[in-house]
């Protein structure tokens, strides 16, 4: 029995038991459903073992949406708890777990996964490639991310959730003050999914550098591809920092070292320092792809080319470097003196310049355009003013002396939600709606989509703008309760109301998927939006080989060129196409990683050793494997193209 005691939840509550039952029932329902419809074989062959970048992208996005609802439920619970003074809906411990998991899930498992999913789906199509450079590695990346996400999510039913905030500052996150295994889960789930992310980074840099269609010079790449390239550069250089920080944190918790302890020569702020050396670039990992998405959408629906292409690229390159120079602004208040704060204050504000250039370039793209108010465009139009407000409050926070007053308050919470929601979440929804016909061959309903947009934007304003005020009134973040005398009550109630509107918005968006799946017309053609870049030059949904013939490109808006200026994209004849084979290796490897992480969390060393051997064995097997892929024959391609009503 003693062995099993470690899996008990340290702070159970009816809410957790209810979700346990719900999770159990859902899992059983899924298993029964798949078995009943006899879909296991299909699932394994077509999805679980796939190395197709499009399917991997879709799996990323499905997982990200699931995580969005998990993190969203956390968010609503937090707003509900703080809606009125002295509320007793959640106790302190539970509230701490809720905001910790909300942060981790939203950043790592929702936002990251969604941008990587969109990159997976879109980038190879935009550059006219058959797949990514390392298709199997890509599948490994996804399954490692998935293993990490699942590992994190079982924490609240087995052993307890982390409760030290998503920033996980030591010594609070050390074993002295956080005794449950929650923080171990944090360490290992991020470690495992972080390895996957790093490999994605390498994969996409090589893909973009080496697999572009003939004629597509670097300065002729579509802006989303540019943003993906820069993002992945940042990933490659930022994630190793997290790897080391997590390793040191794990050692501190599980092997009794003194990296971040305040005794025996350790230093608690070293964690904070390393966390933010990774953490600030992470912000740009999320926002740059969003910038890329908006650039595509604004150009498409203004029916104009992107204004200031070169300065757009230049500003992103500058951001990629500056993003590594500013991390100290996350702890201006540490007491390292005015000189250091001054330096990092200046570098931080400097980032506002390239970001500002982008905002003005988008405005100038619409100038003299022909603006159509589709759902993706509405999100982009909502993004500009809201993100500007988020951006300028960022500049306000960058002023070190003033930051002493904003730091750790709701003002800060308002600021980063104000950049992440209109920045990343709006971009995700815009990109999803925009590329939806590419993925599934039908359009999402515009009317329901627009309702969703208005609910989300208005809900956002109500949910987060009051926080600027309560922050300036002295409400610290992460407080599970406050007294009536503080006067924070009404504004927090307003926030809760806004959160409710946002929840309705997401429900509408889900309903839209269902409704459109039932009612939207199929066969929307290749180009339902009258778009500009290369991904629209192939069928909807995209066949597995992407392009029957490799396109030849002469501008950043190759497809527009072929429509307006008669540029011929496809010059060659159809020939057989080389494709990689599906493989079960990635999911098995990730399974071993999951067992490894889980065993390590609970210090079950036998499980650690066995799964480590499994990981190494799988890699050795892969090393000796001789797999040269397969060919799709000419006839098969012609058949497929005809079926789609192909243009050729």
């Amino acid at each position, binding site marked *: 029995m003693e062995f099993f005691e470690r899996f008990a939840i340290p702070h159970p509550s009816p809410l957790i038991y209810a979700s346990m039952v719900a999770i159990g029932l859902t899992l059983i329902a899924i298993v029964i459903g798949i078995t009943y419809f006899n879909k296991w074989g299909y699932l394994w062959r077509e999805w679980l073992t796939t190395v197709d970048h499009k399917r991997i992208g879709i799996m990323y996005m499905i997982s990200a949406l699931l995580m969005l609802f998990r993190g969203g439920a956390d968010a609503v619970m937090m707003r509900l708890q703080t809606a009125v003074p002295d509320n007793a809906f959640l106790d302190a411990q539970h509230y701490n777990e809720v905001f910790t998991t909300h942060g981790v899930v939203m950043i790592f498992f929702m936002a990251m996964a969604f941008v990587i999913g969109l990159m997976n789906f879109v980038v190879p199509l935009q550059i006219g490639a058959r797949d990514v450079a390392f298709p199997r590695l890509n599948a490994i990346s996804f399954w490692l991310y998935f293993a990490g996400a699942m590992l994190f999510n079982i924490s609240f039913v087995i052993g307890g959730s982390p409760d030290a905030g998503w920033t996980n500052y030591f010594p609070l996150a050390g074993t002295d003050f956080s005794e449950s295994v929650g923080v171990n889960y944090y360490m290992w789930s991020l470690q495992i999914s972080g390895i996957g992310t790093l490999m994605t980074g390498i994969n996409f840099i090589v893909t973009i550098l*080496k697999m572009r269609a003939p004629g597509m010079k670097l300065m002729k790449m579509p802006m989303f591809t540019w943003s993906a390239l820069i993002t992945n550069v940042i990933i490659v*250089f930022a994630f190793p*920092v997290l790897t080391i920080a997590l390793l040191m944190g794990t050692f501190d918790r599980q092997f009794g070292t003194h990296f971040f302890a305040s005794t025996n020569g350790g230093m608690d702020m*070293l964690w904070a*320092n390393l966390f933010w050396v990774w953490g600030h670039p992470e912000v740009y990992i999320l926002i740059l792809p969003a910038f890329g998405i908006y650039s595509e959408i604004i150009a498409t629906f203004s029916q104009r080319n992107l204004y200031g292409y070169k300065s757009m690229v230049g500003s992103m390159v500058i951001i990629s*470097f500056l993003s*590594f120079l500013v991390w100290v602004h996350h702890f201006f208040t540490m007491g*390292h*003196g005015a000189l*250091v704060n001054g330096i990092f204050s200046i570098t931080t504000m400097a980032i506002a310049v390239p970001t500002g250039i982008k905002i003005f370039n988008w405005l100038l793209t619409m100038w003299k355009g022909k603006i159509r108010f589709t759902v993706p465009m509405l999100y982009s139009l909502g993004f500009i003013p809201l993100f500007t407000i988020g951006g300028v409050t960022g500049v306000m926070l960058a002023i070190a002396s003033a930051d002493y007053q904003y730091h750790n308050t709701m003002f800060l919470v308002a600021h980063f939600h104000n950049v992440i929601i209109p920045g990343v979440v709006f971009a995700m929804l815009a990109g999803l709606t925009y590329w939806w016909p590419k993925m599934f061959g039908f359009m999402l309903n515009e009317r329901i989509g627009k309702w969703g947009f208005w609910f989300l934007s208005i809900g956002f304003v109500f949910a987060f703008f009051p926080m600027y005020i309560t922050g300036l009134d002295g409400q610290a973040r992460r407080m599970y309760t406050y007294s009536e005398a503080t006067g924070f009550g009404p504004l927090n109630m307003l926030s809760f109301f806004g959160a409710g509107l946002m929840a309705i918005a997401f429900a509408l968006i889900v309903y839209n998927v269902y409704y459109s799946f039932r009612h939207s017309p199929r066969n929307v053609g290749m180009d339902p939006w009258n778009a500009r870049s290369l991904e629209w030059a192939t069928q909807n949904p995209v066949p597995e080989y992407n392009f029957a013939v490799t396109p030849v490109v002469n501008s950043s808006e190759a497809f527009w060129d072929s429509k307006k200026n008669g540029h011929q994209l496809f010059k060659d004849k159809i020939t057989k196409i080389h494709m990689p084979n599906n493989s079960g290796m990635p999911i098995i490897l990730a399974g071993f990683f999951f067992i490894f992480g889980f065993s390590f969390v609970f210090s079950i060393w036998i499980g650690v050793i066995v799964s480590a051997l499994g990981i190494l064995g799988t890699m050795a097997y892969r090393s000796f494997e001789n797999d040269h892929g397969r060919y799709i024959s000419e006839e098969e391609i012609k058949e497929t193209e005809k079926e789609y009503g192909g243009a050729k």
Partner: protein
Amino acid sequence: MKELFPAKQVIGFVFSLILTAVALTVYFLDMSFEMGITILLVTAFIQAALQLVFFMHAGESEDKKAIYTNVYYGIAIALVTVFGTLLTLIWGYM
């Protein structure tokens, strides 16, 4: 490319041994901290560059621009991290 004698490798090896010997002077000779650190910085970075050029053939493929950019970028960011961390956690504090 086809020459039989591995001249590049031998030159690289000899140089790396010499540089190691130079670096060792900081241990065997008495010198100031600044002097020692300077010697170490110079020898270490020259050695790294030697490995890059003579052994790792960084400049031989058509992707050499990407490879060099990648390496320089990595070194720059790593230096920023090292010195930024020291500035923040050691030098800046009081």
